[in-house]
């Protein structure tokens, strides 16, 4: 378990978000994420899932409310400390966000290189991970030459390679076939068993049933509901084998 195991990993208090001068796309969002839990964030398209995840992965400031991450106030935190916080996250962006001029291999290696890992600790793990997601023969390919599903798997490999404390995945199985979707969920579960808190946004209700121990957060027009009661009380802990 992580050093933060006893406390919460993320806490949102009455968070609201509006883009520019538009209407609020998130209103009064309050929740707590606990270490080692597996969350699904569901809701119709346009409900605000991606917006909520952007707040989670520190790409967006809320218009109001308070956000604490890893025990520190993420809003008042000095800007130069944010990179260290971001390095504890793994993110699967809805639009993948692969670096266009880097190979699949270098894209997956990117988080390790950014955080200063030695090259000898990069080559084998990255190759293994790409092999596991079925891209052993596409390691040198540029993103533009990969299919949508292949790009998505590169994005997922990049998100998990640094063994983050919090994994945030935005519709991570939207472009792969059902078998691959199940396999990728197993990757998230394995990471979760090693202590990572996982948040997967999806509008696919089938996916929820694939992870029985998961907790559900539901967004409806920017408001969070709590069908499993997971968000208000400390949820049951994941106690699977490490």
């Amino acid at each position, binding site marked *: 378990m992580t050093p933060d195991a006893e406390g919460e990993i993320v806490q949102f208090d009455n968070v609201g978000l509006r883009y520019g001068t538009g209407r609020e796309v998130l209103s009064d969002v309050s929740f707590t994420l606990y270490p080692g839990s597996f969350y699904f964030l569901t809701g119709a398209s346009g409900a605000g899932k991606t917006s909520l995840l952007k707040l989670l992965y520190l790409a967006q400031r809320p218009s109001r409310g308070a956000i604490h991450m890893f025990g520190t106030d993420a809003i008042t935190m000095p800007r130069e400390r944010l990179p*260290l916080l971001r390095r504890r996250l793994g993110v699967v962006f809805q639009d993948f966000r692969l670096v266009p001029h880097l190979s699949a291999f270098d894209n997956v290696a990117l988080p390790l290189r*950014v955080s200063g890992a030695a090259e000898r600790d990069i080559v084998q*793990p990255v190759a293994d991970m790409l092999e*596991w997601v079925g891209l052993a023969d596409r390691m040198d390919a540029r993103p533009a030459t990969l299919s949508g599903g292949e790009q998505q798997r590169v994005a997922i490999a990049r998100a998990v390679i640094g063994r983050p404390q919090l994994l945030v995945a935005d519709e991570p199985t939207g472009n792969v076939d059902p078998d691959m979707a199940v396999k990728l969920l197993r990757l998230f579960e394995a990471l979760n068993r090693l202590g990572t808190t996982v948040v997967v946004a999806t509008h696919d209700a089938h996916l929820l049933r694939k992870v029985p121990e998961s907790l559900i957060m539901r967004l409806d027009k920017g408001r969070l509901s709590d069908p499993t009661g997971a968000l208000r009380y400390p949820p049951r802990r994941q106690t699977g084998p490490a």
Partner: protein
Amino acid sequence: MNDAPPIPQAASRLPRRSAEIVPQARMSGPIPWVIAIMVALMVVAAAGGLALRNTGKAAARELSGGITVQIVEARPAERDRQARAALALLQRAQGVTEPRIVPQAELDALVEPWLGEAVDEQAQGGGQGDSLGVPVPALIDARLAGSLAPARLAALQEQLRRTAPSARVDDQAIWLRPVFGAAQSLQWLAVALIVLLSGATGAAVLLAARTALGNNRETIEIVHLLGGTDAQIAAIFQRSIAFDAIGGGVVGFGAAFVVIALLGRSFAQLQAGIVTGSALGWMDWALLALVPAVAAVVATITARWTVMRALRRML
């Protein structure tokens, strides 16, 4: 599909050079060439300014203290008598050195451009050096030790008048003063050109940095969201722009060197005494080499500043 996912142990973290995160972002194509052209123009302008300054200094050294006594007298016999008297007086005078009567051959050479070859023939025929009835003054060159104050010239003139009433004393530098003035103006022109070109180079680099930033915005945002620091991201651009600026600077300096060498050779062929002092010394070349160096530094700082400013607008 049943193998366990290969989730790695936490990797060991060692300090590493940030440029290796992402291969160097290349600047847009024409910028190294723009920098090369700017540097070439600046170096040529600077070399011109330095050569002018050297010329001015050499000429001033050559001419300072030099005086010319003209005996403006139409009758050749009287002119000769006065010239000898003036020479005798100058030889005795305090602080006057190296007085000499400019020989007839030199005088002929001096007036030849205005009066033509006929001078020579007439001179041989007429015996006394006056051609076509045009009297050529006798000239005495001399040097005055110490400063050439107008009062000293006036005093000398007064002494000479007693024995040689037709004598006129001139400071040799006086007739070059407009030339010095023009050279000074050209030097200021060179300085103004360099200032303007520096501004244009800075603007070109700023635009290049912005373009590179725009072209690589996606990469920047991704590295930023993966926890890259501003310094890490700026380094990617800074180095590539520094690289391009150094390349452009070297090419520009090389081109300017060729131009300066060719110009120097064709000036040397003029054999005009005044140009010999204009050659660039090693200090001058060191100054010129500063131009591409400063251009590279300015380009790098501009790039860093542009990227850092754009990054600070991101969360």
